[in-house]
């Protein structure tokens, strides 16, 4: 629980709470503070979690109405891992984007948006990545039945509408 105390001391608004599962340290922080917490973990020489390995989410909306966004960080120099979580309300999930800290967050956050509908404020190009643009709903939400059918997408005229993605990046 030491790491959670360090995070809480460095970023007081985070209200960091630590726990352990299967030998791994977990820290739960306030959603608004996520960028500061991750920047602290990355830049603090004693922590040195320099690599953002993964961003994902777990939908707990049937139980307590929240979506947990999960950040997996790794410190190669210390051979350590940490998992940072932010719980956002499932009806309006919003978080600051960490794309300014790691480029890897770009695609990872797009996938969390695609699959769970979590909006990352400040993301340069927040759009679906694995699903297609007219897809309805967010498939990894527990409220999305695995056998739901999607409406057929109308055929696009490539001459009249040639480049749907031209303004990306």
């Amino acid at each position, binding site marked *: 629980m030491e790491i959670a105390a360090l995070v809480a001391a460095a970023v007081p608004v985070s209200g960091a709470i630590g726990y352990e599962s*299967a030998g791994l340290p977990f820290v739960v922080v306030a959603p608004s503070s996520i960028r500061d917490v991750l920047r602290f973990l990355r830049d603090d020489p004693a922590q040195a979690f320099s*690599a953002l390995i993964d961003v994902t989410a777990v939908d707990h909306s049937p139980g307590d109405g929240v979506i947990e966004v999960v950040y997996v960080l790794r410190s190669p120099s210390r051979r350590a891992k940490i998992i940072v979580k932010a719980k956002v309300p499932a009806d309006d999930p919003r978080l600051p984007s960490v794309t300014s800290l790691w480029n890897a967050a770009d695609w990872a956050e797009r996938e969390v948006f695609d699959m769970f509908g979590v909006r990352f404020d400040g993301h340069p190009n927040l759009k679906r990545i694995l699903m297609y643009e007219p897809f309805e709903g967010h498939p990894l939400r527990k409220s999305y039945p695995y056998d739901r059918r999607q409406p057929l997408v109308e055929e696009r005229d490539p001459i009249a509408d040639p*480049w749907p993605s*031209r303004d990306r990046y």
Partner: protein
Amino acid sequence: MTTERERSSDPETQDPISEVMQIQMGPSHPATHGTIKFDLELDGETILKCDTEVGYLHRGFEKMCEQGTWTQCIPYTDRLNYASPLINNFIFTEAVERLLDVTVPERCSYIRVILSESSRIADHLTCLGMAAAEMGAITVGFYMNEARELLYNLNQAVTGARLTVSYGRVGGLARDLPDGCADQITAALTKIRSTLDDCEKLLERNRIFIDRMAGIGVITAEDAVSYGLTGPLLRATGVKRDLRKDDPYMLYDRFDFEVPVGTKGDNFDRYSVRFEETRQSIRIIEQAMATLPGGPVSIEDPTIVLPAKQEVYENIEGLMSHFKLVIEGIKVPAGEIYFAGEGANGELGFFIVSDGSGRPYRVRVRPPCFYGMGALAHMIRGYAIADLVTIFGMVNMIGGECDR
């Protein structure tokens, strides 16, 4: 943008060199290993921007894992990186075992190491052979496929299938190695070693190959870390990071092997790192085969591992535990874990949440080549459109894993 289009459609003022050309490469293109689309902006032949569109092979892996029992996820993991399905099997089952807090028998770990490394060789041979074939060195492609065939035959002898192996089990393996497996492995490794020597001679003194690989698709070590690159892509930039050494699992700490690294982070370093890793994997297999211990390949716990068929047919306890395991699944205690191992393409991780029922609450796979594809737009900027083929080949996107 519209003014640009109007200008280009007017034949009087049309000058194809003076303006940015937009080209869509894919979704189905002979030089792409999977279905993928690149929206390119070109200045002549130089790529100014590349927008990578993935997801064409999305099958809802993570959603489907939530529908069945833990054991029923294993066949889905085969279809992630289908060039090295055994690695996916074993890392998934290791993750569940750590959540269950059980340790598999030593023989099981040895077999997992042997088959993981043989899969890594098969994966690297696929990547290198295809990349060389795309550059016109089709001989190398055939040589490497021929060598890989021996490993697929090994897969078939051990698991009964060539690609859809489903050989890992939570708490052990589906079955022990078959008779004569050691000879088969020795023969395969001898052939692969001579194939590697041949291919090295064919490629590394080949002017065309070197011109198209050296200095192409350079990425710095800082950028590689920032883009979440792992595995051969990261090691090619000079960062010595390998989970088999840094965070050992499956008894990898018992074997002696080197972690090859590059210096420049270009295509040629990626090629060299993969090439040398193949040789190191051969070393690991040879060490593991020489010291392979006897004993069972699965733990004996009727709440985790299916009982022997004899037990199921002949006594009521066996029948009951079989029934409960198949219908209710393994009761993994509530908790969360992130466990990662070194896949052929990099860090293959599983973030697993269990709620204590027999079914996964959430299974997330951290696919290494998804992040590799995320960095592709950065690696390709400023190079010619023909370099896209080689850079993409060296990222080694596997559609099943990238799109899940």
